[in-house]
């Protein structure tokens, strides 16, 4: 007479309502001290450092942030679309597909993203113009630009990492729940769409959160192939003003804010289906 272990996606970082800070919890001695120190750092940074260049570059910075976010969301979205089949065939696919998918994940995860990016941009990108068919195709205006190569490299990388995550998530959905779906007359497709996939995504959300944050911090690599994201704008500031710390500190702050927003968004998603902590 044993109860089967409850199957929930529990993870150390899950927010429960009790974890959220209340107003009173901010006024504890150690927190007050930390807040004073932090305020001191911010004030002295504002007072002693040079920020007069900032207003001039604000529009460019804003556009850079937009480009960074566009890179992040488009590649995370596209990458995830590829990751679902990549994970699925590794769990249930016929062996040639399984081999292909796990080979893809291994190769991409085993090589630096910078290398992949440069292979695509400097390698493939320099091959394309040699073919008149490509030069004359409707794709050429895009293939002449640098951002499609950035999107492609980041998408491929995200797909490979997420493919592994989704493989684990698909494999981890209890067989009994899929069996229950079949027992009630669901077709394979209905079982996949209504049970397997949503269950797997929910299980994978905490990992997806982390991977998306990592992806955000992979986006500056596209600056090396002349895409002007927020990192490229800051580099330009450094070249123009010969300042080092101020632009870089601002860049750090921007990435931290973006990360914070991402984490909060994912927490909201995760908490849509409450899980019982164990």
């Amino acid at each position, binding site marked *: *007479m*044993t*109860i*089967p272990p*409850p*199957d*929930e996606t529990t993870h150390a970082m899950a927010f429960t309502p009790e974890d959220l800070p209340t107003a009173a919890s901010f006024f504890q001695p150690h927190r007050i001290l930390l807040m004073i120190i932090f305020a001191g750092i911010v004030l002295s940074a504002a007072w002693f450092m040079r920020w007069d260049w900032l207003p001039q570059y604000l529009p460019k910075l804003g556009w850079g942030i937009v480009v960074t976010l566009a890179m992040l969301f488009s590649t995370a979205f596209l990458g995830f679309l590829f990751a679902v089949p990549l994970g699925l065939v590794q769990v249930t696919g016929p062996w040639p597909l399984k081999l292909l998918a796990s080979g893809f994940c291994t190769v991409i995860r085993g090589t630096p993203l910078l290398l992949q990016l440069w292979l695509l941009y400097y390698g493939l990108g320099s091959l394309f113009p040699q073919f008149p068919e490509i030069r004359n195709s409707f794709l050429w205006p895009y293939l002449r630009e640098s951002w499609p190569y950035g999107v492609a490299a980041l998408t491929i990388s995200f797909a490979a990492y997420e493919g592994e995550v989704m493989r684990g998530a698909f494999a981890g959905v*209890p067989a*009994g*729940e899929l*069996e*229950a*779906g*079949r*027992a*009630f*007359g*669901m*077709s394979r497709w*209905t079982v996949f769409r*209504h*049970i397997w996939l*949503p*269950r797997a995504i*929910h299980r994978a959300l905490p990992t997806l959160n982390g991977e998306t944050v990592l992806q955000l911090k992979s986006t500056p690599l596209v600056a090396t192939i002349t895409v002007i994201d927020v990192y490229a704008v800051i580099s330009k500031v450094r070249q123009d003003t010969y300042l080092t710390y101020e632009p870089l500190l601002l860049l750090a702050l921007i990435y931290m804010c973006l990360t914070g927003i991402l984490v909060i968004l994912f927490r909201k998603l995760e908490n849509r*289906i*409450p*899980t*019982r902590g164990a």
Partner: protein
Amino acid sequence: MPHEKENQGNCFHASNSDVSRDGDSLFMTGEAQAIAVTDLHKRFGPLEVLKGVSLTASQGDVIAIIGGSGSGKSTLLRCINMLELPSAGSVSIHGETIAMKKDGRGGLMPSNRKQVERLRAQLGMVFQSFNLWQHMTILQNVIEAPVHVLGRPKDEAIATAETLLRRVGLYEKRDAYPAFLSGGQQQRAAIARALAIQPLVMLFDEPTSALDPELVGEVLSVIRDIASEKRTMILVTHEMKFAREVSNHIVFLSQGKIEEQGSPDQIFGDPRSERLKRFISSIH
């Protein structure tokens, strides 16, 4: 779709529709037999778990399958809705034989997946480990199959589900997720989910075996309630007292064969075979 039925089932269905209900099981009338299992074999590799089992359930029958662990009783139940594919033999549901073909590895597989899906939707299965869908609320669990398999309108399904949840005493928990319920509550929700498709037959696969002893009673009383409305049920169970109380026919499986079967009083009061005697004395 005549090709979906095996010839045997089909012609007898046509010519013997007036044969009485308790007639020879070979001459299935179709309408009378909710479930007919004929000479079912199941092998897992070299191990033969079922060695030719035949079983019929008429409308309103409550059949309890008992036997020691490893006797094949769960496998038999799972073969009825093809969650386990039999190695040989046939299964008919409401007179319609599930069309099977050889799978090339010495076993059988359904030759028409759509038929299996359609017939499964007439069988309400309750599992030992509940198998509620953890990412859905209790209400969503109950309306899932009616809406997405049977295509019922959602508001209608919700109304039915709420009635069923009231009946199993879980109306207040309809918006809770399964992980927040006790085992007994989860199993009662799973029973409501199975009833929601208005099944021809309810299949229970050791519904109380995964429960703490103090939670068994609440689940049994729900099953008793369903049995009392003359719903056809096949029940694999270890609860002998309960089996004797609710069923009208008991099948004792031993080593993959039906060792003995009969009315509850006959099985428990007057066991014939040595194995059944030993089994009954071992559980008292």
